[in-house]
């Protein structure tokens, strides 16, 4: 038997080895800051392996390394590096400065990378579980904090529940088509005309449920606010970007490749979900008083916007969704970086009122928060505007003008709760003195995210062209 060609897997293999290396180094290295540095170096090594690596299929199409997966892997690696940067000081303050934190983040990123490259539902499932199991532990990383326990428990129970639905959908599609390979499923569905079979429809719906849980789309979003609030803030930043993007990666691959021929059927399911997600996220966020909870609802709403890209379909729709997720990674982790700076010894800094008068005492941090809030709202010249612009453009071109109008209306509602933070910072008097736990690593993360948000906002063509090139071979 010939040796299988494993060259397309090199980035994943490197990532797995480095994650285990970090786990072992934790035993001997006493200063955990060094482990954080090694984590970031690992991300860059994998990044390098990804660019110099061989594209193609491995293990008879089970694993696909194409432009689409590479683009998503870049998003995962960026979110890994940025989250590591904002974690270093934070987990010291929270006194959970353990090395396995970084190792779990590496394993979770590995899971996401496998998900993005999955050409077969078996591989998809394994990647998803590797990602999810690591994030369950990360969410409960404050072992002695009951809120963190609660977050971890809720995430675990609902995540396991959702993955059981994924498996049931898989078993049904396997029974119908006799295969789990995404392209083979598409071929079978196209040639055997079982599009209208109720079992196919049920399977599609169960896939929507399972992936809807992962991207926190309404009505499967109930876990998100509690988990985002209770989990360590750095993990919340990670969860709201990485696993969500991974969820969209598999959403796109399964629905556009395997169920590409039944597009009209699942589009009919996704449109109401997208609208409901935007409505729930934007409207409930208005009444929140905890900033992490508010950002959780905001991330639900952003999943709704990104789903418009999937609904529009075609290469333009997918490219606009990828562009949006790329931009979202920067603006959301940036906002969380400011939230993390407010956490100091003995001060939680999670209430929205804690931001009152912040501009007087900390003008730079407030200015950065202002940029991120503008970007999340979608105000030019920030990247958030560019992301939404391409999404809505794709929707209009695909004939969903009314959907774009609905999304713009919800995005106008979102201005209320994002700009309320800005109003608190700039137009209120400070109540008490708020100290910031500034550190050089958080500073780097803020500089990178703010620069990216502004540069992409002014020069939008780079990222969208990269995304368009990435979906060419899709």
């Amino acid at each position, binding site marked *: 038997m010939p040796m299988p060609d494993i060259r397309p897997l090199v980035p994943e293999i490197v990532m797995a080895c480095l994650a285990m290396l970090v786990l072992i180094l934790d035993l001997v290295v006493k200063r955990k800051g060094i482990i954080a540095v090694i984590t970031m170096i690992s991300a860059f090594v994998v990044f390098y392996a990804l660019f110099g690596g061989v594209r193609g299929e491995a293990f008879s199409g089970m694993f696909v390394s194409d432009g689409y997966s590479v683009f998503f892997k870049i998003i995962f690696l960026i979110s890994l590096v940025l989250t590591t940067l904002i974690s270093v000081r934070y987990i010291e303050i929270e006194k959970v400065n353990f090395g396995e934190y970084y190792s779990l983040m590496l394993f979770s990123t590995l899971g996401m990378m496998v998900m993005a490259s999955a050409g077969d539902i078996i591989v998809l*499932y394994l990647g998803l*579980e590797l990602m999810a199991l690591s994030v369950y532990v990360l969410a*409960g990383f404050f072992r002695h904090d*009951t809120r963190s326990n*609660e977050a971890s*428990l809720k995430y675990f129970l609902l995540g*396991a529940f959702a993955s059981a639905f994924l498996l049931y959908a898989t078993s049904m599609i396997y029974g119908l088509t*006799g295969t789990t390979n995404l392209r083979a499923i598409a071929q079978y569905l196209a040639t055997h005309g079982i599009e209208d079979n109720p079992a196919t429809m049920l399977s599609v719906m169960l896939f929507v449920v399972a992936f809807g849980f992962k991207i926190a789309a309404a009505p499967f979003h109930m876990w998100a606010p509690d988990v985002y609030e209770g989990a360590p803030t750095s993990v919340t930043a990670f969860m709201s970007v990485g696993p969500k993007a991974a969820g969209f990666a598999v959403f796109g691959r399964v629905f556009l490749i395997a169920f590409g021929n039944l597009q009209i059927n699942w589009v009919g399911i996704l449109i109401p979900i997208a609208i409901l997600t935007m409505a729930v996220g934007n409207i409930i966020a208005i*009444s929140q008083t905890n900033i992490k*909870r508010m950002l959780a609802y905001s991330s639900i709403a952003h999943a709704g916007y990104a789903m418009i890209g999937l609904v529009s379909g075609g290469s333009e729709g997918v490219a606009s969704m990828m562009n949006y997720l790329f931009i979202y990674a920067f603006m959301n982790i940036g906002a969380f970086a400011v939230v993390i700076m407010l956490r100091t010894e003995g001060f939680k800094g999670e209430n929205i009122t804690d931001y009152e008068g912040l501009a007087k005492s900390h003008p730079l941090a407030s200015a950065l928060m202002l940029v991120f809030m503008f970007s999340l709202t979608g105000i030019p010249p920030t990247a958030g505007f560019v992301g939404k612009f391409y999404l809505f453009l794709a929707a209009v071109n695909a004939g969903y003008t009314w959907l774009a109008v609905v999304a713009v209306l919800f995005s106008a509602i979102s201005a209320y709760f994002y700009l309320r933070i800005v109003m608190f910072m700039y137009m209120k008097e400070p109540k008490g003195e708020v100290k910031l736990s500034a550190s050089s690593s958080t500073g780097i993360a803020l500089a990178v995210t703010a620069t990216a948000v502004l540069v992409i906002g002014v020069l939008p063509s780079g990222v969208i062209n990269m995304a368009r090139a990435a979906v060419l071979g899709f």
Partner: protein
Amino acid sequence: MIPLNWYLWLSAVVFIVGVAGFLTRRNIIIMFMSIELMLNAVNISLVSFSSFLNDMRGEVLVFFVIAVAASEAAIGLGIIIALFRNRATARVDEVNEMRG
């Protein structure tokens, strides 16, 4: 020979029992057992399809599901123990600090 349909009905019934158990029971351990029931319902249908289609894929996936379910159990019980040490409860109704 027992027809394929019987296995599929068995699998569907076990899956629904699992879903119902997850949604109605409030003890974390029993909710967790319900999830295991759902996974095993999937295993039944995968194995029966696999034997019916004369294809190994389904059986391979069953082994993966069993292995992942084992690691899920390890992590899930770890989370429950961490919670139990702080709160001395195994009921989800009592784990409700965050709302709104």
